């Protein structure tokens, strides 16, 4: 089902009191927390934004659920819903790439590994870009890169804030160098956006790795991560194997990233919307009426550098 229908089906419902749960699990299923092994009732889990109420473990969230948890009710309007990958290299792997794409679309109901759109967040006009790990590990190929770049361009042209929520295994190897170049393309889009003096907030969620971490997400003005999220360039197994050293206990966790000065804070999922909104309260452009979603602003903002 295209995501537009998915949202239609959920219209008028508050995300915190959904009655049917996620697309993944039917109502009434008991779920075992992968961290503390407590058995949780699916309904409670949905109400608690997929955070275990025994141990606080943050479970994977689909992009549509994430959008509902961040956007002000009923304000999300998806952009580029049909933009999707092709198999440019005729890549043969354990299964043909075209087949992986078909399966991912079927499983998720999404056309690609990132969902983008306009929304209000705490009253602020934003463009949201949310990655969905179920779609080939939310790896970034041409389509993901293009959607991210267009999201920045849209936010720039409508002078909205940009809010990115990441989760990814890295660049999508089935598209070879075309995927690697998406790192440069999305970083360029982020740079252009940021130089226009507009606010950009990233939320890193579990797991965010490789070519995705090392491109647009970490270029944000303010970077948050969810508790326990694993974030890095090289995966821990590769680091361990290369260095033949025991990894520090909290290696690459959100908590250690704060300690090493790489991100601003670890923010529990229940507080994310409010926290991002508070940042935007400070970083919003002067002169943009906060309620005017979609309104363009005629006040030019000075560039960061001269001569441009």
């Amino acid at each position, binding site marked *: 089902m295209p995501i537009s229908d998915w949202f239609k089906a959920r219209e008028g419902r508050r995300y915190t009191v959904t009655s049917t749960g996620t697309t993944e699990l039917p109502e009434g299923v008991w779920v075992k927390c992968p961290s503390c092994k407590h058995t949780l009732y699916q309904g409670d889990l949905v109400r608690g934004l997929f955070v275990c109420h025994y141990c606080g473990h943050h479970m994977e969230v689909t992009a549509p659920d994430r959008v509902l948890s961040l956007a002000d009710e009923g304000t999300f309007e998806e952009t580029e819903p049909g933009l999707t990958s092709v198999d440019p290299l005729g890549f043969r792997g354990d299964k043909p790439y075209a087949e992986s794409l078909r399966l991912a679309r079927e499983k998720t109901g999404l056309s690609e590994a990132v969902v983008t759109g306009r929304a209000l967040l705490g009253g602020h006009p934003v463009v949201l870009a949310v990655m969905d790990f179920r779609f080939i590990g939310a790896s970034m190929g041409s389509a993901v890169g293009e959607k991210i770049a267009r999201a920045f361009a849209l936010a720039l042209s409508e002078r909205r804030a940009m809010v990115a929520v990441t989760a990814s295994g890295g660049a999508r190897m089935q598209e070879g*160098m075309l995927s*690697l*170049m998406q790192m440069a393309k999305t970083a360029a889009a982020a740079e252009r956006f940021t130089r226009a003096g507009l606010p950009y907030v990233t939320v890193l969620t579990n797991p965010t790795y*490789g070519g995705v*971490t090392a491109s647009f997400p970490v*270029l944000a003005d303010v970077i948050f991560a969810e508790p326990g999220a694993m974030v890095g360039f*090289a995966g821990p197994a590769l680091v361990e194997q290369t260095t033949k050293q025991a990894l520090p206990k909290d290696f690459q966790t959100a908590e250690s990233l704060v300690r090493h000065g790489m991100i601003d804070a670890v923010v529990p999922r229940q507080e994310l919307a409010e926290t991002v909104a508070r940042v935007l309260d400070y970083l919003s452009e002067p002169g943009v009426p906060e309620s005017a979603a979609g309104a363009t602003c005629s006040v030019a903002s000075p560039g960061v550098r001269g001569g441009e």
Partner: protein
Amino acid sequence: MVRHVMEFERPLVELEDQLAELKRLDVIAQPELAAEIASLEAEVEMLREALYSALSPWERVQVARHPDRPKTQDYVAALFTDVVELRGDRTFGDDEAIFAGLATLDGVKCMVLGHRKGKNTKENIRRNFGSPHPEGFRKARRAMLLAEKFQLPVVSFLDTAGAYPGIEAEERGQSWAIAENLATLSALRTPVVVVGIGEGGSGGALAIGFGDRLIMLENAYYSVISPEMCAMILYKDPARAAEVASSLKLTAEDLVRLRIADEMVAEPLGGAHRDPAVVYQGVGEAVLRALEELRAQDIDEVVSARSERLSRTGMFVEGE
């Protein structure tokens, strides 16, 4: 020095050794040897031609990694004059896996960047086999900004297996350092010419590896992931790297076809290490030509063309 023999050239090397053996014998005393030598020479020549003129992608990856292959420092020494090396990221340290320096190419003052592999074990340990830490990328970024400030074109040589996957590299923000370079390069207000001379390993290569022109040596590769690691992920079997190397479309020829690279510089039969002088000349001419074209343009045009080049990279469908 021990000669490095690549797996696929073993039959040729065996013949070459036999030939050398024969030539050591006394030809005057045994005139019938001369005919034998001549016929073996012809055979060696034929085999060499057959072996090297149609290298598979995986074989090219091996040539790209050949220990005797010319390195960044060789290109700097062969092509540039008046070199002033710049060291340190001004924050943490100096990463010898990356070279940065002011240098002159045929009268054109440039900023040269490059991954720097060592020539021997001792050098390689100091230079971490050409795999940078964040401070290497940050040194490169410092050099890029300096180049912009003084309108020096950037010439960047790629030769790395990838950014170093180490504990401290991660803790000091490997991803942050790479991303900042991508952002900086994307908007740098001076021409950027990139030359793939050996390995182009993923994000660690890209961090100094895109700009206004990408010139690839015939046997250099540039890839989103190493064939071995890709084979591990797909098949849990690094031995299937050869077939994966074909799928990844990582050769110079592939990248020209995909319009990621602009041109390919030919190598002598068997690889650049067989006759480096020819390759230095080819690279020097290609870089000068690119610099000439770019320097003739207004910098606003150059930067916006770079932007467009990035924007159109990728293949997808709009759907619905």
